[in-house]
């Protein structure tokens, strides 16, 4: 094959063929981690406040067993919130992505590590998604759809908006991408 001769698959920053294991992974935006912490804190605080109101309100009498539940929930909830915050902090620390010439990888997981690699040639279409909070923080989620089905949509959360746009551009301009479209 003549194509094989001039084939290379280097990481974008360096110049040699890089195996997946040696990829230099880039972390997600720091703002993404902070945003998740913030959302977590707000959700748990609101829940806790609702419970506190139940506890303090003078208008109706709660049944005795319900009162017990509320009492225990009042100290359990902050602990749960704290644990979740800790988990999210570490989970987000373990979320990375890496670009090579022909594919994009995303790795995540603290105990169960998982790395998904999506070849750019097989990308059918791309979506950039932003929720209201992400928009405020100038963050974006990048979704790459392949023919592997909805279950196997490749998603990188928590990218800087400009970064996400650059990756989208990279995928769109890839010389082999969307070649099926042309046939």
């Amino acid at each position: 094959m003549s194509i094989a001769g001039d084939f290379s698959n280097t990481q974008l920053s360096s110049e040699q063929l890089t195996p997946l294991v040696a990829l230099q992974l880039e972390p997600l935006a720091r703002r993404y981690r902070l945003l998740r912490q913030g959302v977590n804190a707000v959700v748990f605080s609101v829940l806790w406040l609702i419970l506190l109101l139940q506890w303090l309100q003078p208008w109706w009498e709660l049944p005795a067993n319900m009162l017990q539940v509320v009492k225990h929930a009042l100290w359990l909830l902050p602990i749960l919130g704290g644990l979740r915050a800790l988990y999210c902090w570490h989970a987000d620390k373990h979320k990375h992505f890496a670009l090579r010439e022909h594919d994009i990888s995303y790795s995540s997981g603290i105990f169960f590590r998982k790395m998904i690699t999506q070849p750019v040639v097989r990308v059918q279409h791309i979506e950039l998604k932003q929720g209201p909070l992400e928009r405020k923080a100038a963050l974006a989620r990048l979704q790459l759809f392949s023919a592997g089905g909805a279950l196997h949509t490749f998603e990188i959360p928590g990218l800087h908006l400009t970064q996400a746009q650059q990756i989208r551009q990279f995928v769109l301009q890839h010389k082999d991408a969307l070649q099926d479209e042309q046939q």
Partner: protein
Amino acid sequence: MNNSERSASTVPELSQTAAQAQWQRVSPIAILYFAVAVLRFFVGQFIYLIPPLILLFNRIKDNPGLAIGIVSSLLLLIVVAAILKFYYFQYRLSAGTVEIRSGVISKKYLNLPFNRIQNIKLEQPIFYRPADYVCLQLDTAGSVHQEARLVALSRPFAESLKQHILDSRQVTTTETDNQTMEQAALAKPGATEQLLNQRSLVDLVIHGISNNRIWLFLGLAAPFYNQLADKILGVLLKAGIDLPAMFDPGQQSWLLIGLYALSLTMFIMLLFTLFSVLGSVLSFYGYTLHKKQDNYIRRSGLLTRHEVSMKLSRLQWVALKRDWLDMLLGRVNLSFEQINGQQQQFATEQKIMVPSVTPAEASILLTDAYPDNQLSSISFSRISRRFLWRYVLLYWLPAALISQLLFWLQQQPVLALLSLIPLSLWALLIVMRWYRYGYAQDDTYYYLRRGYFGVDYYCFAKYKLQQVQFKQSWLMRRSGLCSVKLVMASGALAVPFITETDGRALLEQGLTALQRSNKAWM
């Protein structure tokens, strides 16, 4: 290009431009087709009303006028709907596209360029047989809602239209790719159909026995169970068999009841098998698999004849599946699978299955699709024994301990002993799962083996990969193991508990092969 000219001469409309082309209707026999479709729709919508109607049967018998009125107006509605549907169903052929206008109340317009068509199926319901009409179904890669059906075309016209669409697709691909042009040029002289495989009635009976298609029948019969049971009991009573008395422990000894139960089960199994054979014959009667240029064409069916064609380049993987009964009978179910999409319920239509072939025939078929495959000679690597530990320690052992503890605490020694049967079966399943798992690769293909008592083989080209996943838990990392998942358009296949170096090699070489080949995945 002479190819398309030739076809255009057989289908004159195809040389016209869109402006010249005329809208036309299909043959009036389509009214029958639409009537059946409407009837099916009604039955599908109101199937849950059938049991109460049966219960109300006596009331209806007293009041026949109303019932007849309802039924006849329903029939009239169906006929009118069918005629209207036929009247508003129009199609127009021009060079390179087919357009379809349909719908009575909500109008639908579909414009489908030939080069977007993925699959062409010909379907012949039994009432189309005498006049030899067919229903031509054109599938696109998109959703199910995008499919086009030309409901009643005469067979010669449909065949030449189909050929024209296949040819025009060929031309568009050759324009973009020099390599396929050479292949197409090579393939053109042999444009006649080549018979790859056909199935005899005996094969279908074997298929029916080894692949229980009974669940379909059972599901369909679900609303009638109660009535059926009463009827059967009544009939048996007349024949001198009193089932309730037979199974009454007050009248019979346990041994006798056991014997009765056994023979009854055997009888029911026999009945199921008969139904299953019937189902197999119904759907696969007269099965042939042809190859024409690089299209596979499958024809089968006793009542409704189906013709499915699939381009070889759409093929995602070849699966050779044998369950334990197939192993005993020495048969393999081979399927050519293509894009699965999100519509699981259409999965059976998206693949070409060759039912119950012998291993030798399967190997010939596989070699025909993938000439350089080494499935028969390649040696599979086992997965790690830790697979066993994981499933035994994590699921089996806790379940076993808890169930035993519970039964003994409640002083139920019989139940405790009995529960050992499913437990040991489960353990056996885990061991067999581990034993069956195997993986291998060569330069072009992945080979995967898995199963429980039976064994399934998957063979697929590396360049068809859509995505790869590498997974490792903390414990697996310590012992240098990993799991990988290969995502294809026809589904995902996982290989658990293999050594990290092997896993990385599988993924890395697959990605390289994929990125190096400029071939499209479909």
